[in-house]
């Protein structure tokens, strides 16, 4: 367990964390500000990945694929809100869960019908397939470094948008007291629709960046959805800052735990037991973390509502 290995794993954790943040940022606003339980957020990841992979394949240019996929995901979020979601705001949470769970099934099947059940081919752009030396003799994949940078830029962008702009002020006001915000003459419906579409777009960006790394296939977003719900609960529902901090924590805990926990366990128990219990315990780690946070800070690390 050398220093370079720990450094490399920290970068891996960071990369997982920022990807998670992009998914969780939109979801925390939808849950916290719009008070809407939206389970189909993973489908937005999938839509982003498919849009980017399909356009990349057709045009032969990865950057063009991503550039054109961004408006596609924004539009899909906007349309989804307009066609379906806005009719569900007044329903209770259980009905929202059922309806948006149905949307997951719908999107997965729609993708299967239009793209086939096989995973779509998508690969790294040639210009990003090299390595960057983060320390002498410690090469790190350039693309993953790029993912970290894009994720951090998005985080800064969202932070500035929420804390420095007029729309951000409305969003914050909406989070604190939606009725009062509406009473002050702010069009809360349009605001919600924009938040929803922006959230879908951010999740789509996560999907686009994951595309070259993982299998682009129907249902690819669901594992991310579960982790991003954990992130939201740890960070505090409705808080973008909380989502960022929690996403980085979850990314690091999950990655470092997965790699180092089995070898740490080996110091205390025999090899066979450690090999069996290590991976099982590592996969529980983020949920244990969530439980601990809930015990001491029931509203999360950065509660949005006072």
């Amino acid at each position, binding site marked *: *367990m*050398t220093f*370079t*290995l720990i450094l*490399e*794993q920290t970068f*891996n*954790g960071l*990369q*997982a964390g920022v990807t998670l943040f992009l998914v969780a940022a939109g979801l925390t606003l939808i849950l916290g500000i719009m008070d809407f339980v939206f389970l189909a957020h993973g489908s937005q990841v999938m839509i982003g990945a498919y849009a980017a992979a399909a356009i990349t394949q057709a045009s032969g240019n990865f950057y063009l694929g991503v550039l054109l996929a961004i408006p596609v995901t924004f539009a899909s979020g906007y349309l989804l809100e307009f066609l379906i979601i806005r009719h569900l705001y007044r329903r209770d949470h259980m009905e929202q869960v059922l309806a948006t769970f149905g949307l997951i099934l719908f999107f*997965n099947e729609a993708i*299967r019908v239009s793209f*086939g*059940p*096989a*995973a*779509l*081919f*998508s*690969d*790294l752009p040639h210009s990003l*397939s090299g*390595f960057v030396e983060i320390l002498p003799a410690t*090469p790190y*994949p350039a*693309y*993953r470094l790029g993912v970290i940078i894009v994720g951090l830029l998005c985080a800064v962008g969202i932070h500035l948008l929420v804390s420095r702009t007029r729309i951000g002020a409305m969003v914050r006001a909406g989070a604190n007291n939606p009725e009062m915000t509406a009473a002050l003459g702010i069009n809360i419906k349009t605001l919600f629709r924009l938040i929803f579409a922006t959230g879908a777009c951010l999740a789509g960006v996560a999907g686009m960046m*994951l595309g*070259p*790394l*993982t*299998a*682009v*296939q*129907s*249902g*690819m977003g669901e*594992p991310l959805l579960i982790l991003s719900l954990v992130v939201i609960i740890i960070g505090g529902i409705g808080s973008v800052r909380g989502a960022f901090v929690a996403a980085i924590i979850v990314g690091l805990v999950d*990655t*470092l735990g*997965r*790699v180092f926990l*089995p070898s740490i366990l080996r110091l205390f128990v025999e090899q066979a037991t450690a*090999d*069996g219990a*290590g*991976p*099982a315990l590592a*996969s529980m780690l983020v949920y244990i973390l969530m439980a601990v946070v809930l015990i001491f800070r029931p509203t999360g690390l950065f509660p949005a509502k006072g």
Partner: protein
Amino acid sequence: MKKFMTICAISAAMSAGTAFAESVKIGYMTTLSGGAGIIGKQMQNAVNLAMEHKGGKLGGMDAEVIFADDQRKPDVAKQLANRLMKSDRVDVVAGVIWSNLLMAIHKPVTRNGTLLISSNAGPSPIAGSQCNKNFVSMSWQNDQTPEGMGKHMQDAGIKSVYLMAPNYQAGKDMLAGFKRYYKGTIKGEVYTKLGQSDFQAELSALRAAGADATMIFQPGGMGINFVKQWKQAGMDSVSKLYTVFSVDGVSLPALKDAAIGILGTQTWSPDLDNAINKKFVADYKAKFGGYPSFYAAQAYDTILAIDHAIAKSGSKDTGKMRAVLAAGNIPTTRGNLKMNTNQFPIQNIYLREAVKDADGVVTTKVTGTVFTDHADSYAKQCKF
């Protein structure tokens, strides 16, 4: 009037024909929805192709195949098996990709006296202590393929290896099978999460461990993810990658050039040189576009086996059909298949390499035979 009489005579002959001919019903269970739906789709294609090749008749009997989607869930599989037996009254239940699903339906089907034929899963209990004479495998026992990989790597004189498989029963079986024949140093044995999509952390640890070779079992989408990330992390310069059930007709279209040169073991390959296989692969490619996977080949073989069993016994009786199959010499895409005492095939294990074919499509090619007529290790525990 004469014309009318002719019509009467023809229709009488036809109805007599249907009254006397027996027909056989097959319930084919596979996963058609969810992330693994592509595997089931390929199997369904292959079954339909086999039925087409046989002109809709198996062993001379009119045959009907009823497909059932198990959704990769053991409880659903159990319900479906009951429905197929009780309400559809099928004569054979076949298919099943996953070991845990096969375990769930094995007892109910075999006890009912219905013939159960696996097109893929081959868990060790069914090959050994819990074997049943109404079960026949047209695929392999889980351990056979990684045993071949272990033997190949042992023979190649590879000094150290790093192992990686998902943390579930089949993952553990695969690595156990590998270790039965590989006696070099094992630098690490890592169990990843089932369904894991990002392996970068494991790859970093692997790089630090520095083993000469790496052997993985990551089926389906996990294989696509792993191989992609392996290439992207430049791992080829660190270690040599060997695989079982990870680089195949299901993952290759998504991997393309990234897979070239990767070695794996398998009981089948699209380029196996026999008449049945050549016809199967050529017609499958023509009809569905793209190479069939081993899943598809085994599904095709399953229908051929039923055809063979009925033709030889002249009956769709479970006992008679299984007696024919138990005798072996079943014509398949893997040549004439021999059968062990536990009704699992005794077959060759080939070394396959991912290569580009003449049209530039990535496929696998046999580069050697690791085992000739390899039997599984559990048959001696099986007493009918």
